[in-house]
């Protein structure tokens, strides 16, 4: 399936998500996951990396797509924006893991994507370990709003912060998480 043929659907979901439609945003991330997982598997198999690495990279990319949503220009196509971010994360990942495409001969690469999305593996990303590195106030805000599903108003009442302070904390926290993930310190073993 070609991602470009999905462009109108994906773009509609993105625009709805920017306006605050949760279901649309989750649907978008789910649909993009299918394309991106296949893309990363294909790229990583060439340097002898497996599905878990691809899943790590996929999740980093999803976090990046989410925290950089404001850089999408509503008048432009969505898929070039998505792929620019995916490519950036891939290049950053390769640099970080000190691997380069040329290092592993092609014939050593196992034929992994024969059954592409049949098995979906867990990533090494550990959200709770990551969260432990945030400032306590920020962590509480993210726990309440993003993990426990409290509304911003409820979270504000419980924590004694103002609603806008909760929103700012969540936003900052997610950005910090995306930087932690990108720095490669977020994984269980590497």
């Amino acid at each position, binding site marked *: 399936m070609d991602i470009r043929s999905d462009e109108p659907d994906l773009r509609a979901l993105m625009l709805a998500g920017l*306006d605050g439609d949760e279901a649309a945003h989750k649907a978008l*991330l789910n649909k993009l996951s299918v394309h991106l997982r296949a893309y990363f598997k294909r790229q990583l198999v060439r340097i002898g990396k497996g599905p878990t690495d691809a899943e790590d990279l996929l999740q980093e990319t999803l976090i990046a797509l989410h925290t950089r949503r404001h850089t999408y220009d509503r008048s432009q196509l969505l898929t070039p924006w998505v792929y*620019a971010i995916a*490519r*950036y994360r891939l290049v950053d990942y390769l640099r970080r893991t000190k691997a380069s495409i040329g290092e592993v001969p092609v014939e050593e690469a196992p034929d992994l994507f024969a059954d592409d999305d049949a098995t*979906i593996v867990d990533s090494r990303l550990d959200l709770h370990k990551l969260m432990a590195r945030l400032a306590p106030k920020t962590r509480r805000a993210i726990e309440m709003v993003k993990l426990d599903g409290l509304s*911003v108003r409820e979270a504000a009442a419980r924590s004694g912060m103002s609603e806008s302070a909760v929103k700012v904390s*969540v936003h900052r926290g997610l950005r910090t998480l995306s930087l932690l993930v990108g720095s490669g310190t977020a994984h269980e073993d590497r």
Partner: protein
Amino acid sequence: MKTDELINVLGANLEVVKGGQLRRTFVIALAVGGIAALCLMLAIFGAPTDAFGGQYLGLKIVAMAFTLGLVVAGTSFLVRAARPGEPGRTPLILAALLFVAMLSAGVVALVVSQPTAWGEMVFGPQWAACLFCIPLFAIAPFASLIWALRRGAPTNLVRTGAMIGLVAGALGAAVFALHHPGGSVPFIALWYGGPIVLCSVVGAILGRRLLRW
């Protein structure tokens, strides 16, 4: 962690994204950086006695057109580079043309004058001040533009860093020109153009590290 879980976390209580955030960020960055550079210039040299006139008016206009032209071209590149994807080459070509025009004008001005005057034209008063102060005045706009781009998502860090350096250097040079534009066109080409290129090279080197996300 499973990817489904992550998507649920990201989507929970979804934040509304308002348009125009990046534009506002750039306006703030340029204003803060520019004003800081201006204040630094005033603190060092005091208010220029002939800011909008005097014997150097013509040269002041040349220096301003050159530097502010670079600021405009560079900023239009950066606004696009803040979004993932190809930013396009038009602003880069524009900036290159400004350099070519400035250098050509400098060479022409040398050719039509007496060779005995060349030394004085090129090493006019304040050339060392130019070399030192333009990068100094560029520091504040450089920092504010790095801050702005870090709020975006640039995908070519070296080129983006180079353009941040160029815009910051050009802003620093524009502020310096308010104090003293230098005594000749070749002087502007060399002692304005040189430090701006220097800032751009430093930006390219630092960009890779500072702009990573």
